[in-house]
């Protein structure tokens, strides 16, 4: 049962990664007993499972995911939301209002208008249907302040870190509130503009260097240095 790549090696689509007793994981596929890569990425073995951590990918909705989207259209009984994915998401009026929706009287553009940003949760999605969203939960809804940054969706786990170590560190060091949309959109809300910029810098650095080890320590150091510099000025 040979493998043809070491852990953390770079593969391109079609590269034969392993043979025989292995299971095809993420971004791989099996052809008989051979396992090939299906995306550009870095090889990772998880016992008998072969994964490729994709370097380029797009967001595919999953039920339960928290996402950040932009309202693109107002319909008769809901909104169309762009969630940075191949599929347009739908938010129904009854899921956005805390009371029953009355089509004759309610003006949907008063609640959410085109261009508004929302934090939402995916409630339903499958191959045959577009994803459905809800904002009827605490923490969800229209975004009124803060800054938005977009990163590659596959790098969100790196921003979270092991058991949330990275994200909680950034929150602590910058004093910002950060909401991670699993679709690669991140909302940063801080007390001051400088705090927000600091957090954004840290996140951009994580995206650029997502593949390196010891990143959490380096980011912590960077944030501390930046804060000191700011204090000195």
């Amino acid at each position: 049962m040979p493998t043809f790549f070491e852990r953390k090696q770079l593969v391109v689509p079609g590269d034969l990664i392993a043979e025989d007793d292995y299971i095809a994981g993420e971004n791989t596929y099996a052809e008989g007993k051979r396992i090939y890569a299906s995306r550009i990425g870095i090889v990772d073995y998880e016992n008998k499972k072969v994964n490729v951590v994709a370097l380029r990918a797009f967001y595919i909705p999953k039920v339960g995911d928290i996402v950040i989207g932009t309202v693109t259209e107002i319909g008769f009984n809901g909104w169309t939301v762009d969630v940075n994915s191949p599929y347009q998401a739908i938010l129904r009026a009854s899921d956005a209002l805390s009371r029953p929706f009355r089509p004759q009287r309610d003006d949907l553009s008063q609640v959410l208008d085109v261009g508004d940003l929302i934090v939402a949760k995916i409630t339903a999605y499958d191959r045959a249907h577009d994803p459905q969203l809800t904002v009827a939960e605490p923490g969800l809804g229209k975004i009124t302040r803060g800054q938005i940054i977009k990163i590659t969706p596959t790098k969100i786990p790196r921003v979270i870190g092991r058991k949330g170590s990275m994200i909680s560190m950034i929150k602590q060091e910058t004093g910002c509130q950060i909401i991670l949309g699993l679709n690669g959109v991140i909302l940063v809300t801080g007390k001051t503009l400088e705090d927000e910029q600091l957090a954004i810098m840290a996140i951009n650095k994580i995206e650029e260097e997502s593949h390196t080890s010891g990143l959490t320590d380096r980011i912590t150091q960077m944030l501390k240095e930046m804060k000191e510099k700011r204090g000195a000025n």
Partner: protein
Amino acid sequence: MSQKNMKLIDKKGVRLDGRKPDELRPIKIDVGILSNADGSAYIEQGKNKILAAVFGPKELHPKHMALPDRMVLRCRYHMAPFSVQERKSPAPSRREVELSKVIREALEPSIFLEYYPRTGIDVFIEVLQADGSTRCASITAASSALADAGIPMRDLVVACSTGKVDGTIVLDLMDTEDKMGEADVPLALMPNLNAITLLQMDGQLTLEEFEKAVNLALEGCKKIYTLQKEALKAKYVSFKEAEE
């Protein structure tokens, strides 16, 4: 079509541009050079200069074209007005429409189209300068661009042409050889799966000559494949270096 007084291969077996019969033109591939496209690639093969850009997968417009069980792949092969000696009308010609279809069909088997139904992928191929075998170079570039866009694929696709010039089977035809030669055979290959996705023939070959031409093209494809792979990895080389 060959002219009597024109020699395409001299007595020593050297071609017009100094290549041996089984030699490729110099190839340069760059990946991810357009920031507005989801994926992109640029190829120079001899005097050929071709750009490929990929958008998607995204919601398909017009919507009635969307398929309920798979993605739709759309290709546009287009030659710039300045890509040839005599100005070419920018409107799509019969040849370009045909090549768009042929390229699409060469790429389709390599993509997991069934993964994301009701969506579409757009591939735009712009020939900036043409010098023979543009369909092959286009396929190689388009496949690299698809991989760069993060689209799930079975394998990369590489393409290469062979043909018969002055009675000899030669690899990677350039424009004059294509026009004056006796036959040309473009071939596209998925190298790891060892599957041919495009095979055409223009002109006349005997069965033996055809077999020889196909085998030569397969070899050529494998050579180009290593270059293509290197180009794709080069874009992410910082990832590898940082690991070590």
